[in-house]
């Protein structure tokens, strides 16, 4: 039969990706063990260990925003649909890792500062960045096809916020720990931190690729549905 030859062009993730998924699952099964065994920080005590989750999530929030802006630039100026998919997927990841950052931060703050939230420059700018990415996802979900360019413009402006978030601790006098704290960590802490950073980044890549495949399949399905409609009308 002729239509048996029609195979979907996106066949799902390959062997490399399956290996990455397995590595990711194993890594995240072992990571809590590493965090438990990491040395206890002298002044803050065990609560400092949230750092191993909080900082990687914050880094991924910024990475996702930049990737979203990159995809949006490709879509806006070259009309690349792939760029549009990249932007959409990374915006969702920005929202996800933003939630993790904004939940782990206040949990640490409650113990270290005595309150969950401070209107500190780093906290405020991170919250704003997350809100912008939520606005992106909302625009894509509820704005219809016309929202593509609108959301792409939004992503461009959001990327301008990222340096503000990163530099906020240096520009203003804030109570949030500075980025210079990382090189001062002990050797063991540094090992756990970079393992966690690597595992979270791998998780980001796995989610990005899997979600990207889903988006691509959805686009192809939409095109097919339109073709069928045209065929029936003809």
């Amino acid at each position, binding site marked *: 039969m002729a239509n048996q030859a029609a195979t979907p062009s996106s066949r799902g993730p390959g062997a490399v990706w399956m290996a990455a998924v397995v590595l990711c699952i194993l890594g995240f099964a072992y990571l809590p063990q590493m965090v438990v065994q990491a040395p206890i920080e002298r002044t803050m005590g065990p609560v400092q260990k949230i750092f191993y989750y909080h900082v990687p999530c914050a880094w991924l929030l910024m990475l996702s925003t930049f990737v979203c802006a990159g995809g949006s630039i490709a879509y806006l*100026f070259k009309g690349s649909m792939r760029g549009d998919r990249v932007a959409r997927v990374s915006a969702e990841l920005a929202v996800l890792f933003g939630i993790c950052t904004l939940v782990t931060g206040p949990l640490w703050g409650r113990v270290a500062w005595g309150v969950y939230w401070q209107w500190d420059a780093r906290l405020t700018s991170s919250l*704003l960045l997350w809100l912008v990415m939520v*606005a992106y996802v909302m*625009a894509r979900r509820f704005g219809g096809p016309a929202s593509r*360019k609108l959301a792409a413009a939004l992503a461009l402006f959001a990327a301008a916020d990222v340096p503000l978030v990163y530099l906020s601790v240096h520009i203003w006098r804030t109570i949030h720990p500075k980025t210079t704290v990382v090189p001062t960590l002990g050797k063991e802490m540094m090992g756990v931190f970079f393992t966690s950073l690597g595992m979270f980044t791998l998780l980001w890549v796995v989610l990005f690729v899997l979600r990207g495949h889903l988006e691509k399949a959805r686009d192809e399905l939409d095109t097919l549905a339109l073709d069928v409609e045209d065929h029936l009308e003809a």
Partner: protein
Amino acid sequence: MLPRESVSVPGFATQVLRIAAKDLRIEWKSREILLTMGYLAVVIVLAFAFAFVTVGGERLSPSVTSGILWVSVFFSGTVALSRTFDRERDGEAIRALLLTPIARSAIYLGKLLGVVVLMASVEVIVVPLTAMFFSAELGSHLLWTALILVLGNFGYAAVGVVFSAALLRSKSRDVLLSALLFPLVLPVLIAGARATSLLLDPKSADLGSAVFWTQFLGISGGIFVVLGLWAFEPVLSGD
């Protein structure tokens, strides 16, 4: 047919000024945006006054007063933003605008200038009114406060004009405009409100911080205008 030589394209600055003048001339005929925007701004200030001020109670602190002022400027600004491109939809005027031999960036800057002038015109009424309602010391740094407001208007409108253009063909324009615009321009609100509160406080010795926030407004406004110039053309060209 007109001979080709008789059509001359004006310089960039003239193009920008002509777009702004066109918008302002249309507005001057009906005064629709000015009146609705001004009315909305005053109502917002009054709503805050009723919510915060009690008879014979204490005077509000300068930070609350400046916050009220900036919130009213921001919310009323959406009227100018949504109407400035709404008018281009009437009779598909946008097509004619895009067919004219002028640069897209000139359209962007012209629209931006028009919105800034409209916002500033409303502020001329709302700022003294706010100062009067909340007994704020406006006189001590009047020009500085005006500069902060104008810089804030530029930052706000630089982002707003891009989104307003992108929403030209969208049905849920008004809802999306506020939802997308506000989180992006909140740094402008923060900087503007902080700087104004420092200037409104007669006892404040922290004018250095006011200088910092003014510079912040200038720099962020500049970045927003550059990004706006960049994004405006692809956004306006439609799907």
